[in-house]
C-alpha cells in the first residue's frame, strides 16, 4: 500500500505532497525532513529502496528533484519505482498543456494503484 507521495527538491523543500493515510500536519514536516535527509545521504550506486521506520521508501531522482514514495512491506518496490517513472512520463506529456489534468490523473493514478 502506498502511504504517501512526495516531491522534494535538493534543498529539502517540499514541492508536492500527498498522503494516503492521515498524518498530522506538524508530523508531516518532520517526516518530510527526515525522508529527504535519508534520500540525500545516499549515493548513486546505492539502491533506491530504503527501510525507514516500519515502512519503506522508494525514491527516484530527476535532476534536482526527488520523488519519494512511502510504501508498506506488501508492496513490490520495483513496481513502485517504475510507477514513479510512469507518473513523470505522464507529467511530461500533459504538463505544458493542461495542468488541471495532472491533479485529475494524479488522484486516479493512485486510486487505481493504491491497494
Amino acid at each position, binding site marked *: 500500500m502506498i502511504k504517501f507521495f512526495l516531491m522534494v527538491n535538493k534543498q529539502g523543500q517540499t514541492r508536492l505532497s500527498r498522503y494516503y493515510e492521515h498524518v498530522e500536519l506538524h508530523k508531516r514536516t518532520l517526516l518530510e525532513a527526515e525522508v529527504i535527509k535519508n534520500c540525500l545521504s545516499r549515493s548513486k550506486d546505492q539502491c533506491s529502496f530504503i527501510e525507514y521506520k*516500519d515502512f519503506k521508501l522508494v525514491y527516484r531522482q530527476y535532476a534536482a528533484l526527488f520523488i519519494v514514495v512511502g510504501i508498506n512491506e506488501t508492496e513490490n518496490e520495483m513496481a513502485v519505482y*517504475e510507477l514513479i517513472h510512469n507518473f513523470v512520463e505522464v507529467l511530461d506529456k500533459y504538463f505544458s498543456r493542461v495542468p488541471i489534468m495532472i491533479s485529475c490523473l494524479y488522484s486516479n493514478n493512485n486510486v487505481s494503484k493504491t491497494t
Partner: protein
Amino acid sequence: MAHFRGLAGWRCPNTRPRVSRKRRGAFQGQRSCVGMVENRSSVHSSANVTWKARETWEEEKLIQQELTNLKATVSAPTTTLRLMKECMVRLIYCEMLGYESSFGYIHAIKLAQQGNLLEKRVGYLAVSLFLHENHELLLLLVNTVVKDLQSTNLVEVCMALTVVSQIFPREMIPAVLPLIEDKLQHSKEIIRRKAVQALYKFYLIAPNQVQHIHDKFRKALCDRDVGVMAASLHIYLQMIKENSSGYKDLTESFVTILKQVVGGKLPIDFNYHSVPAPWLQIQLLRILGLLGKDDPRTSELMHDVLDESLRRAEINHNITYAILFECVQTIYTIYPKPDLLEKAAKCIGKFVLSPKINLKYLGLKALTYVIQQDPNLALQHQMTIIECLDHPDPIIKRETLELLYRITNGQNVTVIVQKMLDYLKQSKEEYTIINLVSKIAELAEKYAPANEWFIQTMNAVFSIGGDVMHPDIPNNFLRLLAEGFDDEKEDKQLRLYAVQSYLGLLEEEDAIYPQKFLQVMSWVLGEYSYLINDEGDPEVIMTRLHKLLKKTFVTSETKAWIMAAITKIASLNPGSKTVDKLIQEFSTSLDTCMRQYAFELKHLCEDKDLMKNLLPLDASCDDMVVDASLSFLDGFVAEGLSRGAAPYKPHHQRQEEKLSQEKALNFEPYGLSLSSSMSTSGFTGRQSPTGLSFGSDISGNSTEMGQKEMSSLKLDGVKKLWGKDGYLPKKDSKTGKEDKLEAVPPGSTLGGNMVDHPLSEADQEVVSPSEEEKEKQQLASTLFVGLASNNAVSLMGKADTTTQKFKRKSKISETQNSEEVPSIQHDATLSSSPLPEAQSNNNENIQSTEHVRLRKTSLSSSEVLEASISFKRPQSLMEAGLDAKLPDCRLSPSSLFADNNMEVFQPTQVIPSVAASKASLIPSLSEELASNPHSEAVELCSSDTLAVNLCKVWTDDCLLLVLFVANRSSSALKNVNLVFENSEHFKVRKL
C-alpha cells in the same frame, strides 16, 4: 486559461507589489507545485515567493502573512465563489508547506456545495486534502455528495464518486450506498469504474455494509471495460486476503484475465514501455498466489499462465523485473511444481548476481522469501550472500541479515548473531534496533550453544536494545531462567553464570546500563544470588545494589525492582548490616515509594517467619492462588452495607448513568438506525467487575462467564513464543541431494549451480583462492553449515533436538507416549458438578445456547467400542503463552460432560475423515476454522484404539477448543464421551 492571469487583484495592497515583481522572473519554479493546483495564475504569487525564499524564516514570514490575508478574505461575506476557489488553492499550498489553515476547511465544503463545475472540483479536492476520515466537518459533505450523485451531469457524478473513494465518513455509508450501487450499471465506463472504487473504499472501512453486493463485484470483474475490471481486482485482492477459500471458483477467471493481459489482448493504451498493463499483472499474480496457497488443485490451474508470464517477461526492463519478482513469489507460494520452481530459482539467481543494485536487492528479498522452502538456494548463492554481507550499502546488508535470520540453526547461530550485533553497533535507527534486537533474542533463545554465550548475547541485547526494545524480551528471558529446562543441573549453571556475569557488570563503577537491563539484573540477583554463596558474600551483592539505588540515572521503577531484590536477599541473610543501613537511609527518604519499601523491609526483617513464608526460595514459577473475586472481603462489605454504605456499581454501569445524564443533544442522524445497529457489533453483555473469578460466580449467567473467560484467555494467547523447534520445516525427497551438496566444498557448489557468467569466476576461485577469498569461504562454511544435515534430521521425524539447547520441559512429543500411563488422575482441587443426565440430553441443552465455546466430536455408530483410557496431559500449552491447563481428560462411556463455563456443540461440518494408517492420524481443521489463527493439533492422549487431538482456534469473539477423536481400530465407535473435569481448567498466569 489565459484569462485567469489577471485575477490576483484582490490581494491586500501591502503584499501586492512585491509579489507581482517576483512573478515575472520565476515562471519555471511553479512546475512542481502545480500538481496540487488548478489554475496557473492563482498560485504564481505565493509559490514564487516561497520558491525564492531560501531561508526558512523568510518563508515562514511570508506564508503567515499570506494566511492572515486569506483568513480575512474567506470570512468576508462579499467574497465570490470564484475568489474562494483561488483562496482554496492557496490554502492547499500553505498546508502542503506545513502551515495549518483549518479556518478554510468549512469554506472548502461550502465551495464543493455551491460552486460551478470547476469551483466544485477545487472544493472537493481541497476537502479530500484537508480532512481525514474522522473529521467532524466531513459529515457536512454528505448532502452535497448525495446531491451530486443524483445529478444528470456526468462530471458532477464523477467528482462525487471520486471524493467518496478518497474520503467518506463510515457511519454515513448507508446514505449513499444505494446510489452508488446503481452507478454500477451506468452506461459510461468511467462512472462504473469510479463506483467500484468507491465500493472498495467502503469495503475497507466497513466490510459488512457491502456484503450484500458481492455478486455485483463479480459483474464488475466481468465488465467489458478493462478499467472497471482492474478496479474490481482491488476489492478481490482484499477479500481473498481475508478468506481465500471463498473465492476458489474465481481462479479460472483470474487465470483467463492474466492470460489475456500477458498475451497482449488489452488496448495498447495500457502498455508501459511495451509491457502490457504491468501493474495489473502484478495484482493478478498476487491474487493467484493467495488462491493457490496450499491448494494443489487450484494451483494446477495456474501453472500454465505462470509459465507464460515468466517467459514473456524476458525483456530487460525494470518493470519486467517487478513482474518476475511477483511471479517468483507466487510460484513459491502456491503448491509447488518442480519445473516452475526450477525456472523461478533461475530467475532469483539472475537477480542476485546482477550488477544492478536494485535488482540485487530484489533478488535478496526473493531469496529471503523462498529460503524457508528451499534452503538449497541459499547454498547455491552462499558466496554472493557473503559478499552482500559486507556490501557498502547498509540496506543491502540489512536485507542479507534478514535472509541469514531465516537460515539460522544451531550450528551457525554464533556467526550470524555476531554479524547482527556488528550491524547494530553501526546503526542508530531506533526501528532497526528494535527489530534486530528481538531477532537476536529469539535466535539466542532457540539455538544457544552454551550458557556463557547465551548470557553474553543477552547482555549485548539488553545493553544495545536498552529501553526501546520490546518488553517481551526481558520477560521471556526471565521466564526462561525461572522455568528452566529438562536438566536441573544445567538450569543451575545457567543461573549461576547469569549471576556472576551481572555482578561483574555491576562492579564497574561508572557504567551506565539501560533501565530494563538493570531490572533484569536485579531480578536475577534477587532470585538466584544464593547460588554463589560459597564464593560470594551476600553483603557484597547488597552493597552493589545499594550503590545503584543512589545513582541518579536509575528511575523509580527500576528502584522498585532493586528494592525487591534486596528484600529477597535479605530474607536469606538475616541480620545484614547493609539492610539495616539501607532501612535507616530510606526511612527518611523524600521519595514516598522508597520510604514505603524501606518500611516494608523493616517490618519484614522483624518478622523472620513471615518473611521466609512470603519470599520462598526459587519459587518464582509456582502458581499463586489468588482469590480474584475478593470473597474474603464479603464480611467487610456486608458490614459496610449494613452501616448504610451505597452498594458497589460496576464501572460500566456508572459510566452509563453518567452518560444518560449528560446526553442532552442527539448527535445521531435520524432515519439511520440500520447503520448504528450494524456498527455496534461488539457484545454488550453485562460484565462483572470481578475479572477472572470463575470459581465464585457459578450462579452467574453462563454466556457471560464464557465471554469473560475468552476475553481474558485471548489476551494471553496472542503471542506464540515457543512454536518452532528449528527453522526447517519438514521436507520430502530432497535430503539426498542436499547431503551431496554439503559434502562438496563451497566453492564448487557455487560454480555448479551458477546461472550466468560468474561460472568461470567461480572456477578460478577453486583453483587459486586468494587470502580474502579463503576467508570468505571459511565464513561461508560456518554460515551455511547444518543447512542440509538439519533437514535430514527433521525428515526422520525428530525435531533437531540435538541443536536446540533451551527447551521447555514439556514437549509435544512426550505427550505421545502418555498412553503408557493409563492411571486415572484425580484432580481434587475444585468441585465440578457432573450432571446426572444422558449426554444427548446435555447436548440438546447446550446447542440451544448461541455462544459456541467448544467443539466436540461425538461419534456414534452401530457397534459399541468400550474404550476407557485416561491420561494426564503434561503439556501446559505454553507455546501459546496461555496456560490453559486441561490436566485430566478422562474418556469413559459413562462419564458426562460437566463444566459450567464451557459449551459443547456438534460439529456442523464433518471433520475430514482420517485415514486408517496410524501415520496419517494427524487431523486437520475444516477450512472455515483453519482461516482463523490456530495452534497445531496436539495429541492429548491415545491408545491402540483411540486418539484424541486438541487444537485451539482463536476466532473473533472466542477461543474454540477443537477436539479430534480418531478411531484407530477397525471397529466402529458407537459412543464417545469426553469429560472435562474440574473447573480450574483455565488459569491465567502472570510472570
